[in-house]
């Protein structure tokens, strides 16, 4: 099971995800092997060296810099930078815009993870047998994953155009008042969420397809012979077997909810009235619009801490479930 998962992860993850999703399991291995003597682990170190160099340069180096930047601020525009300790973090926590972004992000994470995972599971169950038709359908459902988020956002920008867009063209006749999909603070976040679900469901489907391959056939057959119906087989055999897959996909979905804001950037810039402002976009605003690197770094640190805690927790439960290596 573990090896299947890892293979999938390696071959399918996009570069941005790769750094986050694959860094944890190898690191666990490294830490554990370290105890049994450095000499034995030397080949491992050598093998990891190239990627460690790049991780150090572009991931941990940048994180270290963010950590330092978060501790400095200027009191007035022309004043020199000075050490302020936790002031930046306090300022971020006290900022209602940050609180708003966190709440939006929670709604966004739950509202995109649950529907896209549910859809992915349904797709995978429906297409678990391989033949010409299901292969074609799998490819069709996987299509949105191949479209870059920025391009997809530009497409949806047209679909959501008020009055003249594709969506209003078709459902306009049915509604008494046409909604301003991206211009109404009550609807905009949901509109953004629809795109994420559309885009990610096909991706998560692949993990469930892989997970379903690992469900032991003899157990299913035995249950079948014992007279268990499709629902019972699903509830008592398939679902428990898919538990590690669920854990893994939930982590990926949550990471996506925090690290992918391309559509917010293209479609709404966090508006209207901050209704679609997510945490990462808030960081961007602080860094670029406010030109306040200290506050941007502080917000990044808070986000990183939350993400790392979440990742550690889920990989630990994953390892527990498998009883360790």
């Amino acid at each position, binding site marked *: 099971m573990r090896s299947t998962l890892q293979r999938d992860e390696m071959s399918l993850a996009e570069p941005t995800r790769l750094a986050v999703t694959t860094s944890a399991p190898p690191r666990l291995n490294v830490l554990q092997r370290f105890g049994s003597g450095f000499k034995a682990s030397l080949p491992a170190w050598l093998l990891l060296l190239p990627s460690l160099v790049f991780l150090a340069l572009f991931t941990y180096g940048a994180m270290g810099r963010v950590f330092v930047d978060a501790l400095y601020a200027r009191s007035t525009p022309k004043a020199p930078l000075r050490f302020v300790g936790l002031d930046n973090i306090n300022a971020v926590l006290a900022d209602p815009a940050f609180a708003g972004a966190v709440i939006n992000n929670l709604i966004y994470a739950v509202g995109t993870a649950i529907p896209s995972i549910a859809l992915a599971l349904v797709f995978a169950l429906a297409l678990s047998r391989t033949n010409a038709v299901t292969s074609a359908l799998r490819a069709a459902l996987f299509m949105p994953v191949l479209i870059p988020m920025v391009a997809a956002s530009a497409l949806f920008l047209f679909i959501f155009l008020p009055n003249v867009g594709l969506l209003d063209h078709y459902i306009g006749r049915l509604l008494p008042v046409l909604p*301003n999909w991206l211009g109404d603070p009550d609807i905009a976040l949901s509109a953004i969420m629809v795109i994420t679900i559309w885009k990610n469901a096909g991706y998560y489907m692949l993990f469930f397809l892989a997970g379903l391959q690992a469900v032991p056939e003899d157990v299913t057959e035995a249950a079948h012979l014992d007279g268990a119906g499709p629902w019972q087989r699903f509830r008592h055999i398939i679902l428990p077997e898919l538990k590690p897959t669920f854990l893994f996909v939930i982590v990926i979905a949550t990471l996506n909810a925090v690290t992918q804001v391309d559509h917010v950037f293209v479609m709404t*810039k966090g508006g209207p009235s901050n209704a679609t402002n997510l945490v*990462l976009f808030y960081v961007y605003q602080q*860094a670029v619009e406010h030109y306040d690197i200290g506050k941007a770094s502080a917000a990044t640190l808070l986000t990183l801490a939350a993400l790392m805690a979440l990742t550690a927790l889920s990989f630990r439960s994953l390892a527990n479930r498998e009883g360790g290596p």
Partner: protein
Amino acid sequence: MLFSRRLMLGLTMAGALAFPALAGEGPSEIDLFFPVPVDGKLARDMGTMIREFNETHPGIKATAVYTGSYDETLIKTRAAIKAGKPPAAVIMSANFLLDMQIENELTNLDALIAADGTTKAQFLGQFFPALHGNAVINRSVYGVPFHNSTPLLYINAEHAKEAGLDPDKPPQTWAEVTDWAKKLTKRDGDKVTRWGIAIPCAYDYCGWMMETLTMSNGGRYYNEEFGGEVFYDTPSMLGALTWWSDLIAKHKVHAPGATPGPAVSTSFISGNASMMMLSTGSLTYVRDNAKFPYKVAFIPRNVRNAVPIGGASLIIPAGLEADKQKAAWTLIKWMTSPEKSGWWSRATGYFAPNMAAYKTPEMVEFLAKNPDAKTAVDQLEVAKPWFATYKTVPVRKTLEDEVMLVLNGKKQPKDALVAAQKAADELLRPYNAETALKLP
């Protein structure tokens, strides 16, 4: 992640810039960062222009570097400055100049002007007076106007005739616009099938439209002489926002909610909105795409005719070597000369900031063929600077967030403006503490 990726890009670019500098001998190599705010064709036009410059100036090798939108151009310029290898010249959104000057990121151009043997008055005298405000900070020149715009009222002439209105006598006051919009709106029971007017509101455009409406209501958006004050909670802005909100809620001739610029122009082109207020920068797009006769007119007034300018200026970042600075200055003067200014204007739809451009034979001929391009230039008579304060973008956003709530019927105009003023004052406080409130 997004930010750090962008920063990395900036750093990589800055790194790439470092190597030509090592070459030493040969022509001085300079980079021009340029954004493409309207559509992709501009990038090709810019290539043509820079090639011509290099052919006529053998001592300089300029390279045009496309840097995305106005905002992204600011990010990349700042990243390059931080990396110690700034580009030699940048086409920068005209209202970012003050912010950059406060952060010590701009070269004061006074010395370069003096070295040419001209005075500041003579140099600025080439450009329309309305553009001086965004180029001069504390009496020093920091930018050279490159392409500029003003908002216009676009009218679907076909719809106007149908409704018994004369498109050759466009509405001049808010009362007339309201009346026109009512006559142009088509209803099917309670449902509106065609809107009388559309005014864009998305971050950036919304603030510009609020400045437009406030100015034509007799008011000011900000203190043009000092970057620490905005005038949100004022009668003139209250009137402006209330009228906009009335068009939606009371007269029901404007679609509810916040509609971004491209959605407004699409709505107009497709005949779903009969009038719109939009930048002159969209004129070429409307001219190429509208399948019906249209008219452009001045932004109507409630108290007086007045509009803000928009567009971009050429700047030289701080921290350049002297020879690059000189080469950049040569490039800037060439790009803003009457001939080039006029050529760029005809290619893009922006107006040419250099007044002499309108005396060149090509421009006279072009305006004879496209009289609508002249309206923007005529309106310059009543134009004033674009708002620019300390932290322009966040200060603008405080107003835009509140305006969006009003347009969605979630807040009353007065409450919205009080909240916006409070938030803006808070953002401006550190700057004021260092300037107007720093007392002996």
